[in-house]
């Protein structure tokens, strides 16, 4: 714990200062990435039930045309990212490593790629229910990485009152600059999306939280927000993991989301800036989500930048476009703190991919070091944004006392931000321990349920 942290103020009290590495891409405007020869559109790019394909193999589709429909309320449809031909519907690799059903699409090289789908909608006269339905039809999900269907957040659960729409522009992960560029280049779309969300939810106030390491974004947003007295753009000191919604709510409002609860429990709905920008852009035209901004960064890239990439672009193709060098040793989807490393480049970019990080062997080895026993320095306890005790949980995990971790030490509250692993001087893979523990507990509970049912 640093001496400075005694002084309060509106900031994250815990967490860590990680090196930002953002300068590589933060000033590069968004560029369009060319279409790949083949696109792979997984049917499950979001949290919830996978979408159901509504196209046949061999069918020709137009850019923006729905190709899969949502399967239930917590599910969203998919739209064709390019005009072309459905090659087949088959299994494709995913970020988790397992194979999942996907639609393979070959874009017509000669097509105009104009979006012909959609028609203007009059949002001002729509009821909240209609807006929620329209948002679902766009297929927009949380673009900050969680990929949770956005319209579900806009539907306030019965008996709860949400008064504040919070716009999350923190982007605290190192390397990533997607949200930054979106805020700089599309502030009006962001705020429009926020106002739509406010209407759907029935809230009365919008707070935009941006970390102070993006002054240009704050400036542009403040300019855009000047016309709306109910929108406040707040600058917060940069600290990881401020972008986690529970953290941001606490920093900006001092409200604590109860353990196991949702932001709506404290009257808040949080949306990522990129998500809102897409809603603000797509909803008035009633179109579907077919592309997104992805940061390509890392020392092993010659042409890093923020690319507007069609969803379904295979990673191998995208990396070639970004100038991947031979030094590349590891590819991470998302930020280095929470993003998973992937083992195959044959998987596509999906709605939840905020960035692609290509690291050299040297970068990855900086994490190397013998794993020593916990010396109880307490650094992890000091940085854990949730005030958990990773030190003790790590020791319990070593002895496989997973159940105790959950019952006595709130294991399930951990959202794996990685702060504890980052600071651990003994190089204990704490987050990995916790993931395993959660998995073991889930399996144990499933076994118990099966037993009691039998």
């Amino acid at each position, binding site marked *: 714990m640093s001496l400075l942290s005694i002084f309060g103020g509106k900031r994250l009290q815990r967490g860590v200062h990680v090196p930002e590495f953002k300068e590589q891409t933060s000033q590069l405007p968004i560029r369009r990435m060319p279409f790949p020869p083949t696109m792979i559109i997984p049917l499950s790019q979001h949290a919830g039930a996978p979408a159901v394909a509504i196209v046949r193999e061999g069918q020709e589709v137009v850019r923006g045309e729905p190709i899969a429909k949502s399967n239930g309320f917590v599910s969203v449809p998919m739209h064709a990212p390019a005009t072309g031909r459905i090659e087949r519907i088959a299994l494709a690799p995913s970020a988790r490593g397992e194979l999942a059903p996907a639609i393979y699409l070959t874009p017509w090289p000669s097509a105009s790629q104009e979006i012909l789908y959609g028609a203007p909608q009059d949002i001002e006269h729509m009821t909240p229910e209609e807006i929620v339905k329209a948002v679902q039809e766009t297929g927009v999900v949380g673009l900050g990485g969680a990929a949770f269907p956005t319209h579900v957040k806009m539907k306030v659960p019965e008996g709860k009152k949400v008064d504040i729409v919070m716009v999350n522009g923190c982007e605290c992960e190192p390397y990533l600059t997607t949200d930054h560029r979106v805020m700089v280049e599309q502030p009006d779309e962001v705020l429009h999306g926020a106002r739509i969300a406010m209407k759907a939810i029935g809230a009365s106030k919008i707070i935009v939280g941006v970390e102070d390491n993006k002054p240009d974004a704050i400036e542009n947003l403040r300019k855009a927000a000047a016309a709306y007295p109910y929108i406040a753009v707040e600058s917060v000191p940069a600290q990881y993991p401020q972008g986690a919604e529970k953290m941001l709510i606490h920093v900006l409002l001092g409200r604590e989301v109860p353990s196991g609860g949702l932001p709506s429990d404290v009257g808040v709905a949080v949306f990522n800036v990129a998500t809102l920008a897409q809603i603000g852009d797509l909803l008035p035209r009633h179109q579907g989500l077919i592309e997104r901004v992805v940061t390509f960064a890392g020392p092993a890239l010659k042409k890093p930048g923020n690319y507007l990439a069609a969803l379904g672009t295979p990673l191998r193709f995208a990396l070639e476009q970004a100038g991947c060098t031979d030094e590349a040793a590891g590819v991470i989807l998302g930020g280095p703190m929470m993003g998973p490393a992937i*083992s195959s480049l044959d998987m596509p970019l999906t709605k939840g991919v905020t960035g692609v990080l290509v690291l050299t062997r040297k970068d990855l080895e900086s994490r190397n070091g013998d794993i020593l026993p916990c010396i109880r320095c307490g650094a992890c306890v000091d940085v854990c944004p949730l005030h958990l005790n990773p030190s003790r949980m790590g020791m319990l995990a070593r002895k496989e006392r997973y159940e105790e971790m959950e019952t006595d030490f709130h294991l399930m509250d951990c959202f794996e931000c990685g702060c504890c692993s980052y600071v651990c001087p003994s190089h204990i893979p704490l987050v990995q321990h916790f993931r395993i523990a959660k998995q073991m507990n889930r399996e144990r509970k499933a076994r118990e349920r099966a037993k009691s049912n039998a």
Partner: protein
Amino acid sequence: MSAPSLTPEIVLRTSPHLHSKRSVGVIMRNVVYAMLPVCAYAVYNFGISVLALLVVSTLSCVLTEHMFCRAAGRPSSIKDSSVIITGILLGLTLPPGFPLWMTAVGGFVAVGLGKMLFGGLGFNVFNPALVGRAFLQAAFPTAITTYTPAQATGRFLEFIPTSLTLPFMQPPVITDWVAKVRIDAFSGATPLTALKFDKVTTEIMPLFWGNVAGSAGETSVILILLGGVYLVARNFMDWRITASMLLSAMAMSGAFYLSNPTAFPNPLFMLFSGGLMLGAVFMATDMVASPVTPLGVWIYGAVMGVMTILIRLLGGLPEGVMYAILLANAVSPAIDNLTQPRVYGTKKKAEAKA
């Protein structure tokens, strides 16, 4: 422009993929660096005997750890430097002329009993150096309370006679030798024994600079503080424990002083004398034996500060830092359990019940 060939050993690692540069080895080495000025001053103040003392204590600790690892068939763990800290600390807490063979015994006990029996680094319940010292204090009560004057003549050329006692033999009586080598104004009595038994309070400035009698490394307040400031500045030390211990010691002795200024010494003297500084900066902050919770470290420090003063002023011993820290070590797991931080989004116990 070729696609990268991903090496499985690396890609299969999970997040986070970044790591801070702070590692156990770095922390431990820096603690050693922070203690070096204190060691140097100890040698300057008391002569080559202290040099030999520090070398013997460090070597015996390192060898013991190495031996235990060998016996257990594990790779030797001396690389992480933590055992060097134990060795130096043990040396710094002993009287300058402490027989070297006893020092070696202390090193063996410190690491063997205090650390390796518990499973090595990270698992010891008590501060190993203090376990060693407490053992020595109980085993050889006379030798460990035999202090020699600071700044003695010829201290760089001649050993203190007790240092070179043959193994298992009693150290010789050195009253005559002390009379011969001592310079005026430097007595063999430590400030705290002078206080306890003769009701004499030493002045503050000599305590601050350190040219008084005492255990080898405890005399110079300024150098110990500088070492602490270095460690705090580089975030290798928990300043809260030190602060809490010193503040509570100050408050406690202040209360005594105010209640009866003639019977009790002033708080500044209590703070600067004896091993309080050394203990508060380098021993109380031993990470392994201290609590990890933010509230816990404050309580832990307070326990040590209060106990130190109680033992010094009310107990039978002139100095209480060692016992205070050992007692706090013993209750540290309890403090840890009682001060588990309230997890974000959960209610306090009292509220939850209500």
